[in-house]
């Protein structure tokens, strides 16, 4: 086969790859659900997942190097999504296949469906956002309830989330469907923005999506920040410019930045004051998502790049915190007091390391990726003249510092008081925890390539 034939074959493949990336997880999910309790169901799901993610990474890379008509920033997000999808699948696979769960095929099928909808959102089209975000949220709520058959509070949280995703979808679709000039255009944009903010959990603060993050089983919890909120935030940034111009675009961007600045501080304070580890995790992730929103709201290449790098930070720390918490307390809806972290460094060194590194990254500590991405966010905010947004990012990081100290003290310097053995072996989550810890530290030491790619795609994506 000559080089020209290979290139022609690749071009033909990439023309159908978007349909494959979106359709394959949904079809494999149907097959896995139909297989029922067969022991091959997990293998089929894993094969479908690997093929989908390989195709998504190839498509994303080709988009970033302008070899497909797809938008470069969408390509970057697609690669982040594909990586996150693999981690989610590993994490979810390790937590839904508990001894008490006889049949893991339905939860695995739901995870596949959710990942399919997450990949839908990286394609820059209004319909894909309107369909992907709420459908993914609804599947997630179902997955949460499936993993918590007898826990009333978790099912109630799932119902609240269904209400939130339903309302968010309605507002988003109404905003996308309306047109007109002047006030009508501003009204439509406000509706769409409100819809996405509700779906990705930035608004209301500590709302239904936070509650779902707190009460969901680890398998579903893994999905929320990386697969629902991040693509939704990216989609939100794509809504502003095509639908508005001049003053309206500036006003919309400013409104989003104000919302992000408020949410990052409020969520960081909530995390610092939390007495439940899961609530602390949900609020910490919420604070980082709000930082991503500030970056995307800047509508500049520097802001877009900072938002993209912080999206990677956010996904990594979400996986680290949720994965480590799943090792300690895997069951949904159970309050996890901070005492359960005591002596974890001796009992579960890997989980403790992942937890500590992720909290430090959330606080923006040097030598973690969180430091680099927050630095970029502050620069982007100052470049836009939003000193208050930069101050909010700094304040949120400072609020997280005592929390990080408290967590590390419990992990490594407090005697172990845990009487019962952890319910989860943690073996399935080992690759997740190792990968997250190493990536957070490695990118914190040298993230030049990541930052360059982010600037490259953000500049190509139309940032001012």
């Amino acid at each position: 086969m000559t080089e020209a034939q290979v290139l022609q074959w690749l071009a033909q493949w990439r023309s159908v790859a978007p349909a494959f990336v979106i359709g394959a997880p949904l079809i494999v999910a149907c097959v896995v659900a139909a297989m029922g309790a067969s022991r091959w169901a997990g293998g089929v799901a894993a094969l479908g997942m690997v093929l989908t993610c390989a195709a998504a990474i190839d498509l994303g890379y080709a988009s970033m190097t302008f070899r497909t008509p797809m938008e470069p920033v969408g390509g970057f997000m697609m690669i982040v999504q594909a990586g996150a999808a693999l981690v989610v699948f590993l994490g979810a696979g390790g937590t839904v296949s508990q001894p008490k769960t006889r049949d893991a095929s339905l939860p695995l099928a739901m995870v596949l469906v959710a990942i399919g909808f997450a990949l839908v959102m990286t394609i820059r089209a209004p319909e894909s956002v309107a369909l992907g975000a709420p459908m993914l949220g609804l599947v997630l709520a179902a997955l949460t309830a499936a993993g918590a058959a007898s826990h009333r509070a978790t099912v109630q949280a799932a119902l609240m989330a269904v209400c939130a995703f339903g309302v968010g979808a309605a507002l988003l679709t109404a905003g996308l469907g309306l047109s007109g000039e002047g006030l009508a255009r501003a009204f439509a944009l406000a509706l769409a923005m409100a819809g996405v903010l509700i779906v990705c959990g930035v608004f209301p603060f500590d709302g239904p999506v936070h509650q779902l993050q707190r009460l969901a089983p680890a398998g579903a919890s893994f999905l929320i920040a990386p697969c629902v909120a991040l693509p939704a935030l990216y989609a939100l940034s794509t809504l502003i410019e095509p639908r508005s111009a001049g003053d309206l675009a500036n006003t919309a961007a400013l409104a989003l930045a104000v919302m992000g600045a408020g949410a990052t501080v409020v969520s960081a304070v909530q995390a610092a004051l939390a007495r439940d580890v899961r609530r602390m995790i949900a609020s910490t992730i919420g604070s980082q998502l709000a930082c991503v929103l500030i970056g995307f709201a800047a509508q500049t290449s520097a802001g877009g790049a900072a938002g993209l790098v912080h999206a990677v930070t956010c996904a990594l720390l979400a996986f680290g915190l949720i994965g480590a918490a799943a090792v300690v307390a895997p069951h949904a809806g159970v309050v996890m007091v901070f005492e359960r972290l005591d002596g974890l460094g001796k009992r579960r060194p890997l989980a403790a390391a992942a937890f500590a590194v992720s909290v430090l990254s959330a606080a923006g500590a040097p030598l973690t990726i969180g430091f680099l991405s927050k630095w970029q966010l502050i620069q982007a905010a100052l470049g836009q003249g939003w000193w208050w947004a930069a101050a909010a990012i700094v304040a949120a990081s400072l609020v997280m510092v005592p929390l990080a100290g408290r967590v590390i003290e419990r992990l490594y310097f407090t005697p172990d008081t845990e009487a019962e053995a952890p319910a989860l072996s943690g073996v399935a989550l080992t690759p997740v925890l190792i990968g997250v810890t190493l990536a957070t530290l490695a990118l914190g030491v040298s993230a030049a390539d990541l930052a360059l790619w982010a600037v490259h795609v953000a500049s190509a994506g139309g940032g001012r």
Partner: protein
Amino acid sequence: MEAAQPLFDRAYFVAALVVLGLGLWLSLSAPRWLGRLLGVVLTQAGALIMVLGAGAPGALIGVLIAVMTATVAIASALLLRLQNAPQPHDDGGEAP
């Protein structure tokens, strides 16, 4: 949407706003889950009337109908699960 009509019908818009507002109010403040879910469906119905009146593309209308169907289906399953879940002693009532 690029293909949408420039101006929507005023009557459609007022009707849609009323339905959407009622739905939002119900979904936020109804004391029971059924009321809240009715509120969500009304909000989505208001959005549907709004996009229909604005002459939005069929794909968007189809998406909204798909999301409405999924919302009702998943909410029904969750309500059934909630009814079958063991009654708590301390979580106080149906709606949080």
